[in-house]
């Protein structure tokens, strides 16, 4: 940073950006890059590749549920020639375990924190790179050992087959199941590597957001995207060590016989009956202490991104900027004390369940506030139905379903019935596919011009949305009914049980929807790769948006900004009278006051008045 501009609030970046040199050759530019934008693109392509893998695993699971024990078309005979193309029960458990693992650890978490966190944090706060560019590079490269571990675990008999929750004793003792051998150890190692990657990322994000904001960029002028990513980074940094510790304990249980999670006196094939003294519940506490907040790690960044994109697409300031931040913080802090709601049936003291239940009920409140605020943002806006808008609305409508079905889960007596049935599967797919992935699709379309300097194709984008939305609802909505009828999760053949026999047609319908949804993703990939090279060129600010990244060239050069930006006001100043424009960039100082008729008397939260936080 050569020129330090006077800041209107007196705020200066505390930490000078590291003076790293412009990249020289191909390797330093595209492979071992320390530039946050290139790392974001690396994360994007890696996670999209993993999305294909995770999706394929899901389709295989759905195939088994629709056509149990029938030879899988095309890949079946090639994969399992011994079983005449059939999916064996061992393989089935591996399929859903790895579907969850890949989707959670290699798709959703890294696409949000890795891709959007990397791309947007420096650009939106006006920094020229992350605080620790080399650590940033390392956080990307730590994804690969994880991918290799997960990939290698396929090679061992059965693959990891204890579910993504890896509950002991099934996951703790190599003899417990065909998939609990070396594959499970490799799985744990993979999760640990992903954990390292996330940890490096979150340290970097926190440091960058706290220390490298442009002059004038107070905390309450940060775009909500940055707030989402910031709170996520904090969650990540405090929750992840617990999972890592638990993971180490499980690895030593498996390899050294420490028995943290293994009680005495069990009779499992050829296991030593004299060892023991542990408690499987301990793992559940450690695991959910991370994995419940992880749900918000997978959601909060999207909540932030949606707020900014929706506001831009309906040309209105976000409704209730500060309540949005407070509700995100409330979700995050409550998120730390509700892990026990995954354990209502676990045998944990039932009286403790009540405290968890009240906290869980309360977490629905900030989520409701956010939903109402988004709807109010649309109210009175000017809506143009482009791909970004459609995906935002898709997010909103699916998030409502996922949020409301969460209330059933919070009510313990009802949860006891729904626990481990397809109702739960419906709930978290509405949240994690319905909400998160639609947010990600919106984000890809919205920030693509900034990443590659070209626009994506609208027709392809809309078709992709249409098919995905239809497919997603067709696949996930009937899951509520499966849950109502008491179909447990993770059953290779539910029709073996009399009361579930009649569910086959419903499962077949869902599988067809899933195939439709899966094939729709081909359009997304075509769109991305075609538009990267042949899309119409985008200017600096194709969406007429207000935040700092749109003041930089598309794509931004090394070091991002032509000159360091200065920020004068909050992030979502739309619907203003600024010459012939209806928006005010965060770097623009002057603007006619809005007509009195346009403002509401209650609203005097002028962000210009905010003092530095």
């Amino acid at each position, binding site marked *: 940073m050569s020129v330090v501009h006077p800041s209107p609030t007196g705020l200066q970046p505390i930490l000078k950006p590291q003076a790293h040199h412009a990249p020289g050759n191909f390797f330093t530019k595209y492979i071992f890059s320390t530039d946050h934008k290139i790392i974001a693109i690396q994360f994007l392509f890696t996670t999209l590749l993993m999305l294909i893998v995770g999706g394929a695993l899901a389709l295989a699971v759905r195939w088994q549920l629709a056509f149990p024990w029938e030879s899988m078309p095309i890949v079946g005979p090639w994969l399992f020639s011994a079983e005449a193309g059939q999916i064996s029960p061992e393989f089935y458990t591996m399929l859903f375990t790895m579907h969850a693992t890949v989707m959670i650890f290699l798709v959703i978490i890294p696409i949000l924190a890795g891709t959007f966190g990397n791309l947007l944090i420096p650009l939106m706060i006006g920094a020229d790179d992350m605080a620790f560019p080399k650590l940033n590079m390392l956080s990307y490269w730590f994804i690969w050992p994880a991918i290799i571990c997960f990939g290698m675990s396929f090679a061992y008999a059965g693959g990891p087959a204890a579910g993504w929750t890896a*509950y002991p*004793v*099934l996951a703790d003792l190599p003899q417990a199941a065909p998939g609990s051998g070396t594959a499970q150890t490799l799985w744990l190692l993979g999760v640990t590597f992903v954990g390292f990657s996330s940890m490096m990322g979150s340290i970097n994000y926190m440091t960058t957001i706290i220390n490298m904001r442009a002059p004038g960029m107070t905390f309450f002028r940060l775009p909500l995207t940055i707030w989402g990513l910031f709170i996520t980074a904090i969650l990540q940094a405090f929750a992840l060590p617990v999972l890592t510790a638990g993971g180490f304990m499980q690895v030593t249980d498996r390899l050294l016989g420490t028995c943290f999670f293994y*009680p005495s006196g069990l*009779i*499992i094939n050829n296991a030593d009956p004299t060892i*023991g003294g*542990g408690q*499987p519940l301990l793992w559940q506490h450690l695991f959910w202490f991370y994995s419940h907040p992880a749900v918000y790690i997978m959601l909060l960044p999207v909540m932030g991104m949606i707020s900014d994109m929706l506001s831009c697409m*309906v040309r*209105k*300031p976000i*409704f209730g900027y500060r*309540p949005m931040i407070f509700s995100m913080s409330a979700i995050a802090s409550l998120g730390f004390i509700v892990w026990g709601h995954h354990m209502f*049936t*676990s*045998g944990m003291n*039932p*009286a403790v369940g009540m405290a968890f*239940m*009240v906290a869980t009920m309360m977490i629905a409140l900030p989520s*409701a506030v956010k*939903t109402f*605020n988004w709807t109010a943002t*649309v*109210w009175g*806006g*000017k*809506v*143009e139905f482009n791909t970004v808008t*459609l995906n935002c*609305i898709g997010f909103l*409508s699916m998030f*409502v379903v996922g949020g*409301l079905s969460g*209330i*059933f889960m919070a*009510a313990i*007596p*009802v949860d*006891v*019935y729904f*626990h*481990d*049935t397809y109702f739960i599967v419906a709930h978290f797919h509405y949240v994690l596919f319905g909400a998160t992935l639609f947010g990600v699709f919106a984000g890809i379309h919205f920030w693509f011009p900034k990443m590659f300097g070209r626009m994506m194709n609208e027709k392809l984008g809309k078709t992709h949305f249409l098919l995905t939305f239809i497919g997603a*609802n067709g696949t996930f909505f009937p899951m509520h*009914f499966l849950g109502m*009828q*008491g179909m447990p999760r993770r*059953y*290779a053949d*539910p029709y*073996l*049980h009399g*009361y579930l026999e009649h569910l086959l047609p419903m499962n077949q319908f869902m599988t067809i929807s899933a195939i439709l949804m899966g094939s729709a993703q081909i359009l997304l990939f075509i769109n991305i790769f075609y538009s990267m090279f042949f899309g119409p060129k985008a200017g600096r600010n194709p969406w007429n948006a207000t935040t700092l990244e749109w003041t930089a060239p598309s794509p931004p050069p090394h070091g991002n900004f032509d000159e360091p930006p200065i920020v004068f006001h909050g992030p979502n100043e739309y*619907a*203003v009278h600024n010459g012939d424009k*209806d928006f005010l960039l965060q770097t623009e100082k002057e603007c006619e006051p*809005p007509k009195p008729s346009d403002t509401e008397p209650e*609203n005097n939260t002028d962000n210009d008045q905010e003092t530095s936080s």
Partner: protein
Amino acid sequence: MGKGWCLFFLFWPVAAVVSCAMAPMVGWSFPYDNAQAASNLGIRIDGLFYLILFVTAVVFVGTQAVLVYALWRGSSNRDERATYTHGNHKLELIWSIIPGVILLFLALYQMNLWADFRIKKYFPEAAVKAPIAEVTARQFEWRFRYPAIGKELQPKPQSDDLYSVNELHVPFGKPVMIQLRSEDVQHSFFLPALRIKQDALPGLQIPVWFEANKEGVYDLVCAELCGWGHYKMKAHVIVESEADYQNYLKNLTQQQFYDGLGKIAANENDSESEATEK
């Protein structure tokens, strides 16, 4: 085209509401053709479920209607600019307090039900005093150990205990309690018809009580992933009158302690040959 998209977004909530409304008619609701829960506690759980369903349905229809209406208006907005507003404090207070009150009500409302369901202090005394069986889950079957007729269940197996596999008989119309344990990995004792579910945790013995209110044969399944054969942990709970139940125990005793010489009625009960001796 904007209006078309509004209709598209209107279609889904409508489809959701319609399919939920017709679910009980086409058998998509609770198991066994939407039958009422086969336990009194289950009926109360269903009641709580329908209460929450009502609340969430109102919220769902409300929010979706407002969203689609806002989109509809927004897509026909020909003004130069959208409305400039940063929020409305009063409105936000209203929509924080109302859901807050409803959620708190729901939280407090169910406390009694939960206490009756799970907290041992509130269990029916008769059931706690005389657990009818010990249920042991193992890969991939259910084992049941009853005390000998007229005796009480002891924590350790006794020489005159009765055993059966994958078939649990209980009398209806009175609260019964079982002791749940696992022999190997974690399992979960799930009786969909009675709305009962409890994980069987290795190393722990967990009491579970229920009161079946009508006769019948109900599926008992495992709800916690327990290995590759998880899906085939298939058992039945047979709810019968007290007299039938005592008869069953008598037959079981005869079968199990038949010395191979005496004339014992075990031959007439071939259908129950599943009961194994241990």
